[in-house]
Structure formats: C-alpha cells, structure tokens
C-alpha cells in the first residue's frame, strides 16, 4: 500500500510496477481526481481533505491495508513517514513497514537524543544542549554554548519550531514561540538549544542498509538553496566545492552512524558544513524528496532498493561496487509566489508543458486541468537534470526550465532560473543564506560576490 499522495505516490507506484508488485493507493476526498488514484491497482478513500483526517488517519489507513490484503506499506515522505508509532502499528497488524525499525525512527525522531547517541559513534555534532525542561535551563545552556544560538524543536523538521536567539533578552520570546509552534506542529513542545552556525552549507549523505549488516553510502547532496523556512528548492550532487577530505569524512560519519544505530532501509544524514568542518544535524529515516539526483549519478533505483530491503533481500553489493558518474541537479517547482514570501498558490493548472530531451527527468503528479488542493504541500514537480559535468547539468536545467509552461498558478520556475544564472551558484560557492540574500536584494543578478 502506498500511504501517500502526489508525485511520491506515483514514484512508489512506478517502482512497484517494475517489480511486478500490485498496489493500493489511498486518497482524500480532495484528491479523488489525482494521478496516483488512477495509476494504482486499487484506490481507497480514507477521509476528507484535511490531512489530519485522511493521510494521517492511521486507523483508516491500516484498515485499508488489511481489507485489501496488502503485505507492506510504503509511507513515502512527510505524513506518516517518520511516525514510529505508525511503523509499530503496521508491524502489529502483520504489515511490513518499508523503512527502518520503529525504535530507530523514534530514536532519530528525537533530534536532541539522536545527537547525543551519534556523538558516541564518533559523529561530530553542533555544540548543543539536551532537551530543555525550563527556560532557566535554556538560559544556562545558551550561556555555556555562547550566543548566537538556535532554539530547535526536538521533534522538529522543515524549520518549524525553530528560533534564532542573538542575545539573552531575545530568549523568553523565542522560547515561547518555538515551544508553541512545536506543540502545534508536532504535538511535542520540547526544545533544545545549539550553537548557531552562520551561513553554513547544508550537505546530506544518502545511505542504504539491509537487514544483514550490509550498509553503503550513495554520496552526498548539497541542499543549501533553501527558502526562508529551511525548505529546500534546489539540490545537487556531488556537492560543489567540498574538499576531498571533508567529503570522505562526511561519508564515513554517515556510515558509522547508520551502523551504530542498526539502521535498515534508506536514510539520510543531514550535516551543516562550514569550510572543512561538518556537524551532524539530524537523520531523516525515509526516502527524501531529492532522492532522484542520487539515482541519476549512481544509476540505482532507491525506491526499488527500499522495497527489496524491506522484503528481506540483502543489498547484493558493497561500497566498492558503487561508482557515481556525472552531476545531477534538481529544481523543485512549487505552486507558490516567491515574491510574496513563497505563499502557496492553490488553484487549477490551465496549461501544462513539461520539459524532456537528453538528461532530463520530471517527477510530477499534476496534469493540465488538475487542481492543487489547499490542504497539502505546494510542490507541482521535480525537474532533474543530469550531465557529465556540473556545467552541462546546469545548461540542461536552464534549457528544461525554459521549455516548461505552467499556467494557472504562480510557480518557482523564475526564481530557479535566477538562481541558476547567478555567479554564486555558477561557481558553486553558495550557502543556506543564498535565497534570503536574493530576497533582500531584489534580483538575483544584483547579488555580486562582494555582497558576501
């Protein structure tokens, strides 16, 4: 059963098709006309539009899997993908959850604890506190780490429940804001504090591990091009301008971490990188949105690998067998207005032409006439460009984005083109402050290297 919607539901359906696995889709009333409902062998409505009553409705989702005699559940990303309780309930009902063990999801889901544990495995982490019990503890922790600090939700993700604290006076407001937001978003208001690393790069390492102790990494992805709420918009692999030493150390830390916690299936370890220093930030215990760039350069189908591993097969290869070739970039095309703080733009797509041609892959679930419901994330498509070199990949991406035509909703195509054209991106010398700088300065073209 595919417990998700949108492009990732289609992506999983494709992997199942190629493996000869029959599929059951779930959908909300708002998604009745969506592509994943059409493509799956069977489709069951599990609730009304709001995700809390449909895509997060564990009883109805489990019940669907049972009445349709499913063997396994692929959670995709978002929704229930990193919900340890859901993974456990799947197991209780004889369903294979396609992902790591529930205990590992729970461990990694608690960001502060994950850091503490992985420090034991020799992974470098940002100097930070354990989970805070009170604001007094927050003052003490911030003082010992040194301002500026970052308050973060331990259950967090996607930048929610996160606040920058520049000085002690800011702490009360930030503490109240972060805990309230974390409580609202994750039903878990606990926060911790860590050193704020200014303008780092966000680099993450893809790993795959089977149930027999086999584990490999599939290189890294640079995801520093992020919207204000820490949401990624352009990702690429390999990460440009990473020293060989830093790259190797990232890969080794990721593998050590995966082995230390007994990780199985696909996962990603996110690091903040500043110069040659890398600090472990968090681990995502699921397939990620940006997984296609890794697939392009390693010529491997990560979703199929997930299914194979979950069905008890060994990896069948070791690190030395894996070679990456060329360069891949992904641009996320979202239905939103970059000039209006990336406000989501729900609506109906009236015209739609996606790019094609050599080296281009488009993962999407929309079609002309499709309506973007207001309940879910606003991503319309992922355009991925491959090239033997980074320059070729960039040129292809620019060509592909210019070929794209999406009418009816505002999209991030223009801002992606601006970013690709900027000298900062061209030279591969960008960091997580890149988009905030563009937004402050107006046009990307006006961002000169000296503005750093």
């Amino acid at each position, binding site marked *: 059963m595919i417990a998700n919607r949108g492009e990732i539901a289609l992506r999983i359906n494709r992997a199942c098709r190629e493996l000869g696995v029959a599929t059951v889709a779930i959908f909300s*009333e708002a998604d*009745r006309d969506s592509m994943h*409902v059409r493509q799956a062998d069977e489709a*069951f409505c599990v*609730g009304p539009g709001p995700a809390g009553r449909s895509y997060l409705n564990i009883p*109805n*989702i489990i019940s*669907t899997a049972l*009445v349709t005699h499913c063997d396994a559940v692929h959670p995709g990303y978002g929704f229930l993908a990193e919900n340890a309780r859901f993974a456990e309930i799947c197991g209780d009902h004889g369903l294979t959850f396609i992902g790591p063990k529930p205990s590992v999801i729970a461990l990694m889901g608690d960001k502060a604890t994950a850091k503490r544990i992985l420090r034991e495995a020799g992974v470098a982490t940002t100097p930070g506190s354990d989970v805070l019990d009170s604001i007094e503890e927050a003052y003490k922790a911030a003082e010992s780490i040194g301002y500026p600090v970052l308050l973060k939700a331990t259950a967090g993700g996607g930048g929610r429940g996160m606040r920058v604290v520049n000085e002690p006076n800011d702490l009360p407001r930030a503490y109240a804001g972060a805990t309230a937001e974390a409580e609202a978003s994750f039903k878990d208001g606990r926060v911790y504090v860590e050193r704020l690393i200014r303008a780092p790069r966000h680099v993450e390492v893809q790993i795959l591990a089977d149930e027999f102790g086999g584990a490999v990494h599939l290189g890294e992805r640079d995801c520093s091009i992020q919207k204000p709420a820490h949401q990624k918009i352009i990702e690429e692999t390999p990460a440009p301008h990473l020293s060989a030493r830093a790259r190797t150390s990232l890969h080794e830390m990721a593998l050590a971490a995966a082995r230390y916690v007994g990780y199985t299936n696909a996962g990603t370890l996110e690091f903040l990188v500043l110069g040659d220093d890398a600090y472990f930030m968090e681990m995502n215990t699921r397939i990620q949105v940006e997984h296609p760039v890794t697939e392009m350069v390693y010529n491997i189908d990560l979703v199929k690998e997930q299914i194979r591993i979950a069905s008890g097969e060994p990896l069948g290869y070791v690190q030395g067998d894996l070679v990456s070739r060329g360069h891949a970039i992904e641009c996320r095309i979202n239905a939103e207005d970059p000039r209006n703080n990336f406000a989501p733009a729900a609506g109906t797509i009236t015209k739609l032409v996606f790019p094609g041609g050599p080296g281009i892959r488009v993962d999407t679930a929309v079609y*002309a006439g499709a309506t973007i419901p207001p309940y879910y994330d606003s991503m319309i498509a992922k355009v991925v460009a491959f090239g033997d070199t980074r320059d070729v990949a960039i040129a292809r991406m620019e060509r592909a984005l210019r070929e794209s035509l999406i009418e009816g909703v505002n999209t991030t195509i223009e801002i992606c083109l601006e970013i690709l054209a900027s000298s900062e991106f061209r030279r591969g010398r960008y960091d997580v402050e890149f988009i905030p700088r563009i937004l402050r300065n107006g046009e990307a073209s006006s961002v000169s290297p000296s503005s750093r």
Partner: protein
Amino acid sequence: MTHRAYVGIGTNLGDRVANLERALLRLRRLGAIRAQSSLYRTKPWGKLDQPWFLNAVVSLETELSAPALLEEMKKTENELGRRRGERWGPRAIDLDLLLYDDLEMKTPELCLPHPHLRERAFVLTPLAEIDERFAAMRDALDASELAGVALIERESAIAMSLEGSAPLRERLTALARFLAETDAVRVRVERAQDEIELEVRPRRATPADRQAASTPSAAAPRIDTIKADLVGIFHVGRPVPAEGDALEGDRELGYIEALGIRTSVHSMGAGRLVSVATADGSAVEYGQPLFLIARGR
C-alpha cells in the same frame, strides 16, 4: 484536452442497483459525469433463462484517451466482478464504450462507434434520453426490439433486486409494502429457479410515457445517503433490514468492522429504507454509500 465519451452500463447479476452505483462511483474517477440516463429494465438476450438486465447510459467528460478509457473500464469491470480477490463467476457489470467524441476506429480491441449501437434498444433508448441526436436512430428500431426495454423507476428496480440471503417471507413482505407505496408497472422476483412475476396496472411503455416518466414527480421523497465514515468491512445488521422497511427512530442498520472494532451504522432518523447500496461483507472506503433512505412523505 477533454473528451466526451458515452458509456453503456449493464448488469444482470446480484444486487443490480448496487452494481450500477458502484460502476458509477468508479466512472467518476475517470472523468466528470455530465449526463446520466434513467434506469431501464431489459429482457435478456438469447438465453432466456437469465435474469433481466438493468441498463443505463452516461455521458462522461474525460481527459483519458479512448484506449486508456477502455482499459480503465475493463479494470473496473474486473474489480466489480470480484469480491476483493476471489472471483465470483461471471462479471456482475458490463461497461461498453459507445462513442468517443466523433472518433471512428476499428482495432481488435476497440471499435468506435460501438458496433451494436444502432441495433440495440437497451443502448439506444437510454442514449436517446440523454442526447436528442439519437432519438431518430431509436425510433427506427423495430417495435418488438423496443418493447423489450422498459424505463423503470429507480425504486421499482430496487424492489426487483430483492434477492440474496433474506428469507422469501421477508422479501415478500418488503415487496407487498413496496407495492402499496408505488404504482409499479411490473415486478418480478427471482430466486434460483423460482420466480414470481406480478403485473400491477399494466401499461405499455411508449416514447411518450418515457418522456413523462423521466421527469421526476414533485412529490418524490428526499433520499438521504448514509455513507461509510471509516474504512473497513461492511456488514448488514441482523435482522437484515429489508428494502422497503419503514424505519422508526434511529435504527441500527449494520456495522463496519475495522481493526477488530465494530462501528454501528445508523439510519440517522426515521424513513423508509430504499436500498442497501453495498453488498454485505464487502470492503468499504470512506464516504461509500451504504444505505439509501427516503425521508418524509
């Protein structure tokens, strides 16, 4: 790019009204239903020992290409003919792609317009009802062919679907109640080899009658649909609520079993049970119609 397709629906097995409802539910996923004919009762073709057919035609606005639509229709036929995995013999539902825009094609898989379109009253009669352009074609058919197809009130169709596990006595009671409340033309109850056919105020269906009958009467009761609000296996309650039953107060009509828990399905107030829309023991999705209940007088 949207296309206009006409789809013929036929069913002569099991609970025909429920089959038809399910087919419509699936067709809605393939596009928007722009027009839907009344229900027609058709004498079986060829082998006369088969039960009668229930036929209708819908006009579907779809994004799918003709072959893709056909494939989806075949999938729907297979799905509906199966009880979640296990085959239950011949298909309970037939879907025919009659027309697709003005497309004319002839391949082994697909022939458009549908080759028997011009010959079959059970296709042309409902088709002409929703699209005037086919009226002349319908009127050109033999009278004997036309006489085999009769427009039936939805409720008569339901009453005629009284089949299945309920004891004959219960079904006859329901039938009697139904007859008291309606001016049905003809009612036929079949069970295995036994069948009863009753004719009440017989009259011949003429094109004029069809016209009159297709406009709903002003006094028609409001029909409420009781829908599933969770996913699970649906069970009709015991004693089995019979179609036509007067429901007093808030009666429990059945339950949905999910994750080992039974959740009751209630009539949500008084009324008359028009139909059980989902077969006992089948898997239901959120929002699936379970019971149709007529409210008021």
